[in-house]
């Protein structure tokens, strides 16, 4: 009797182990839905909207961002399974970083067509202007009735009307697209740049002379600044400044170097040509570093 019992315990354990193994395997098989790269305000992975409809929404969102600085993005995916729409939405929001850094004024409008689920994810900075209650009302009163009739564009467009109307009332900092974050990063870079110029420059000068070393440091600084800020004018300016500092900051160059000083600028141009490739590849629209905390509302239709 006791033996039988023990055996049944063992089988039960085996079953439980098998179950654990199975869930582990399933977990890896049912990988999470990937977050698509952010290239434009409207991302439709379901081919629900026509090209004209996407353009219409796209233009409105870009115009709103230019005017107010806040970023609203629309994403349509077939499904968010195995995650809930809330879990997927916060992952997208964390990856895309809609809204400006520090202002956190981003909104994500996420639609999972096969799940028949929709969510408005609201950035920290807009939780006052677009509280959960309002997001819920927009979903229940504006989006859900239209989506039920299959009018996705109408639902999204009307929801945007309501969201934009709400955000218009919110006093936010004036729109100055990403200038501030570039400044921040440049500030963090400055010490590094000076180290490069002075330490690296001192070493290089012994090998290449002051002109050669200034060219190298100028080019390196330009490339580095571009790498961090992705802003060409600033990278070129940094390259030129660093070239000049490298040239005159050390022992000081003779007058004859001045006419050839332009070449140092061209050291920076290396950064420029590399920059162009990255710029066109990077696309025209990206998040500004805004934060999300899970605010907003979800609904089903």
């Amino acid at each position, binding site marked *: 009797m006791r033996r039988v019992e023990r055996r049944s315990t063992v089988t039960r354990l085996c079953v*439980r182990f098998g179950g654990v193994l199975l869930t582990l395997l399933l977990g890896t098989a049912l990988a999470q839905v990937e977050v698509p790269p952010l290239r434009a305000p409207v991302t439709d992975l379901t081919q629900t909207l026509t090209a004209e409809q996407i353009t219409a929404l796209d233009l409105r969102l870009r115009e709103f961002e230019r005017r107010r600085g806040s970023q609203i993005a629309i994403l349509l995916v077939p499904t968010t399974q195995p995650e809930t729409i809330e879990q997927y939405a916060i992952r997208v929001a964390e990856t895309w970083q809609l809204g400006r850094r520090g202002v956190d004024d981003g909104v994500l409008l996420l639609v999972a067509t096969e799940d028949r689920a929709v969510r408005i994810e609201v950035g920290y900075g807009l939780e006052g202007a677009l509280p*959960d209650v309002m997001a*819920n*009302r927009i979903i229940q009163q504006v989006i859900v009735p239209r989506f039920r009739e299959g009018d996705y564009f109408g639902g999204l467009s009307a929801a945007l009307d309501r969201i934009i109307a709400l955000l218009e009332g919110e006093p936010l900092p004036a729109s100055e697209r990403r200038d501030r974050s570039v400044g921040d990063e440049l500030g963090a870079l400055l010490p590094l740049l000076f180290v490069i110029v*002075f330490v690296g420059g001192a070493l290089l000068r012994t090998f290449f002379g002051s002109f050669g070393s200034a060219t190298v440091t100028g080019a390196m600084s330009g490339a580095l600044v571009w790498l961090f800020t992705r802003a060409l004018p600033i990278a070129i300016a940094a390259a030129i400044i660093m070239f000049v500092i490298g040239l005159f900051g050390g022992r000081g160059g003779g007058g004859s170097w001045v006419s050839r000083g332009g070449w140092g600028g061209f050291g920076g141009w290396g950064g420029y040509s590399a920059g162009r490739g990255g710029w066109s590849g990077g696309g025209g629209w990206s998040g500004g570093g805004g934060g999300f*905390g*899970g605010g907003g*509302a*979800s609904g089903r239709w």
Partner: protein
Amino acid sequence: MYALRLFALLMCTALFGGCGYNTLQQQDEQVKSAWAEVLNQYQRRADLVPNLVNTVKGAVTAEKEILESVIEARSRATSIQATPELIENPQAFKQWQAAQGELSSALSRLMVVVERYPDLKSMSGFQDLRAQLEGTENRIAVARKRYIDAVQNYNVTVRSFPTNLTAKLFGFEEKQNFTVENEAEISRPPAVDFSEAPAVQSPPPDAAG
């Protein structure tokens, strides 16, 4: 000469950074702010409960028990002082987590019951409250996840070499993390015993660890 001095300064910074002191400070601060956000969101939920109960009370008079259990769970959850120091104290942390878990389950039971009352469901005041509650629960989930990640980062630093020496020197201790409710059951190694001897003589569980 100037260059040399700068270089020396740079090396000093690099050496100091290498022992992980700065990393520890940073991650400790991250854990604290993540924890503050967790407390913030739980407080937000606790503040919502009286409103919710008042709105629901009139419509669901038949469900007195559930309403009372929500009120009771709320008062228990808020009676535990939620301080930043809670994450240093395993006992208090567990208590606090259990109290909040009780409130969670009481609230979800209430929301299930409410489904039976169409009049209430169509009331706009109730819909708003439900949206707020759902939003808050979602914020709690996000805040918890961020806290878990922050503590994980921090604990790895505290335990791995050579930063564990720095951590010990400056008194950085491991912090409490959230656990799933039945973690004790999952993490316990299955006691498979094939021997014929009676199970009473099995070695103490500590010996395995």
